[in-house]
């Protein structure tokens, strides 16, 4: 009991302990804020990728695509673990706004909006046709025109706060889209004649996926027209990918394994038919693997940040060691007194570890509450800094980041607090152990002979 009483009194009455508490609080504050923002950014980014892709993709990197996709979709639709499947054309195109001299290279994605919306959150990402996805490719100003959906950064400029301002309806803009149609062998389909297929599409909507690369370079076209443009609408129609969504109770990994197994069987069934060599390049990937190149960079950045702030934790240990050496050198008389009344070495260690525990607990509580309050207001603070000093954490004209993520994960917070307390205990262990080894006659300074 005296250990609890003394540890508490040391904490309250020794001013030097305030420095230890402040050091722990500051470290916890920094780590909570950085981890929350980084974890939030990464998980938000992953979620956006998941929303954009669906659960699984059966597809090929080849621009030639693969045949019999409709047959495979039919098979998939019969399976109880599949919620939906959507064929997708993916290619590259030259875009030329009509009546201008401008040319830009873009990616095109041919989709059937209703089907694709069953697999992804396509409708939610639209602006004008959010509630009527079947008309995504029908411009409001003239539904009879062939429409296209533009990645939002292709259509609208962002302001410095990462906000987009849409007109009441999309402006009537005609875009000439040219693709290079390919044969099943991968050769240019129109070699010797016009090399390209060109068609005029009208801007019908914008799509904001939150993925910078997608929003700045992607144009969505009706599936069949994209197929025609890319030369995939021959007698054996081809697509580049099938995006799949599993039923809610299906684990993505299980779903992918089942789909992969189905694909293997499907390939065998199709062996010997026309163009089946194109099926060999098709892979079945979960959404994370499919977007690995993009997600891995973010995860790597997160790992580096965790490692860097792990070093902050190590610094805490050293601060605590220094503070505890100072505290214990001031308290050596107390150690002698306690030993003279029969307190054991292990109890001396426990006393100072209890003290360190309280320092860690109080410091991490202050740091965690401070970090949480800061995060609650982080966007307001950033807004104020931007308004008055032009400072932004990320330049929103460059990065596709809206609000700074500020949702504190309880599990992350718990780990940080436990690590902070453990750092304090580690930092206090050596000085406590040395204190316990002191002889009472030395600590009481009674070597008067």
């Amino acid at each position, binding site marked *: *009991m*005296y250990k*609890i*009483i*003394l540890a508490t*009194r*040391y904490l309250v*009455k020794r001013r030097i302990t305030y420095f230890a508490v402040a050091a722990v609080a500051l470290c916890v504050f920094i780590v909570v804020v950085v981890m929350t923002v980084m974890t939030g950014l990464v998980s938000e980014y992953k979620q956006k990728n998941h929303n954009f892709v669906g659960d699984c993709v059966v597809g090929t990197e080849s621009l030639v695509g693969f045949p019999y996709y409709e047959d495979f979709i039919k098979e998939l639709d019969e399976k109880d673990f599949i919620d939906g499947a959507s064929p997708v054309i993916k290619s590259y195109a030259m875009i030329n706004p009509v009546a201008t001299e401008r040319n830009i290279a873009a990616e095109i994605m041919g989709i059937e909006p209703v089907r694709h919306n069953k697999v992804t959150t396509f409708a939610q990402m639209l602006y004008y046709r959010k509630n009527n996805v079947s008309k995504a490719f029908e411009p409001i100003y003239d539904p009879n025109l062939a429409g296209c959906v533009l990645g939002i950064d292709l259509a609208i400029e962002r302001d410095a706060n990462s906000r987009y301002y849409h007109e009441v309806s999309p402006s009537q803009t005609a875009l000439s889209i040219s693709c290079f149609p390919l044969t099943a062998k991968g050769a240019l389909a129109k070699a010797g004649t016009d090399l390209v297929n060109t068609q005029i599409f009208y801007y019908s909507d914008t799509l904001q996926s939150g993925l910078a690369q997608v929003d700045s370079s992607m144009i969505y076209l009706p599936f069949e027209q994209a197929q025609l443009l890319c030369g995939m609408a021959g007698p054996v129609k081809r697509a580049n990918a099938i995006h799949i969504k599993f039923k809610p109770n299906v684990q993505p990994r299980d779903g992918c394994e089942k789909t992969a197994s189905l694909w293997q069987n499907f390939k065998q069934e199709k062996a010997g038919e026309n163009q089946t060599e194109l099926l060999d390049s098709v892979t079945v990937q979960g959404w994370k693997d499919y977007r690995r190149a993009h997600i891995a960079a973010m995860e790597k950045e997160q790992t580096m940040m965790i490692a860097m702030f792990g070093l902050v934790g190590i610094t805490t240990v050293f601060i605590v060691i220094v503070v505890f050496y100072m505290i214990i050198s001031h308290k050596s*008389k*107390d150690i*002698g*007194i*306690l*030993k*003279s*009344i*029969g*307190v*054991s*070495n292990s*109890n001396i260690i426990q006393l100072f570890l209890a003290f360190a525990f309280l320092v860690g607990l109080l410091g991490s509580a202050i740091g965690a509450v401070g970090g949480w309050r800061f995060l609650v207001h982080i966007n307001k603070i950033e807004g104020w800094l931007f308004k008055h000093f032009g400072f932004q954490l990320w330049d929103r004209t460059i990065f596709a980041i809206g609000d700074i993520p500020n949702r504190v994960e309880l599990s992350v917070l718990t780990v940080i607090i436990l690590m902070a307390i453990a750092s304090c205990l580690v930092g206090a262990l050596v000085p406590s152990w040395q204190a316990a080894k002191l*002889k*009472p*006659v030395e600590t*009481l300074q*009674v*070597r*008067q*002979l």
Partner: protein
Amino acid sequence: MSKNSIMLKAEGLYKSYQMGATEVKVLKGIELAVGQGEFVAIVGASGSGKSTLLHILGALDKPDKGIVSFQGRQLSRFSSGELNRFRNKMVGFVFQFYHLLDELDVLENVYLPAMAMKSTIGWLACRNWAKNRAKELLDQLGLGERANHKPYQLSGGERQRVAIGRALMNEPRLLLADEPTGNLDSATGNGILDIFEKLNRAGQTIVMVTHDERIAERAGRIITLADGKIEHKSTIA
């Protein structure tokens, strides 16, 4: 003094300290016996080794050579746990500089030895008894009104009386006092010695170290230490 009544015995005690390159021999073969209920004063000039002897007798330090026995048992054969219990239950220390814990109030300082050897549950079970005992001791020492004061709010004499209360908390068989009046004026010092005499009359065994022969005369027996050896023993009538 019959063999059975000997509480504390030292035989052939040697102790030396290293001071830089020089070895200082402090105790050079001390022979000493303290009977039950005795009040013994050890006197000697500064540096004669009297404090060192007291610390060895109270198991705060170890001799280089020699034996210290308490009620027939050699301290050197005690395990560390037994030594802790010995310091807690059998001996009470009173130091020249009081050595109270600044973070605790007077009452807490007094009952600290009772708390020190108890687990949290054990302490909760006996804390009322301990607090009452500490209050009684403070009343006896004339500090009943000072129970909730902090040590720094007390005078030197009051602090020393708190230290005596703490030393007596666990009703030790032996009270060891190292220059208990050394830091006090003569009137306050006399008050402390009156308390020792009263305790001794009630049967408490006391060994007191002092450099002042007039203070030593208040004890029942005086042992003079000079150059690390016992020079003279006298019994005061």
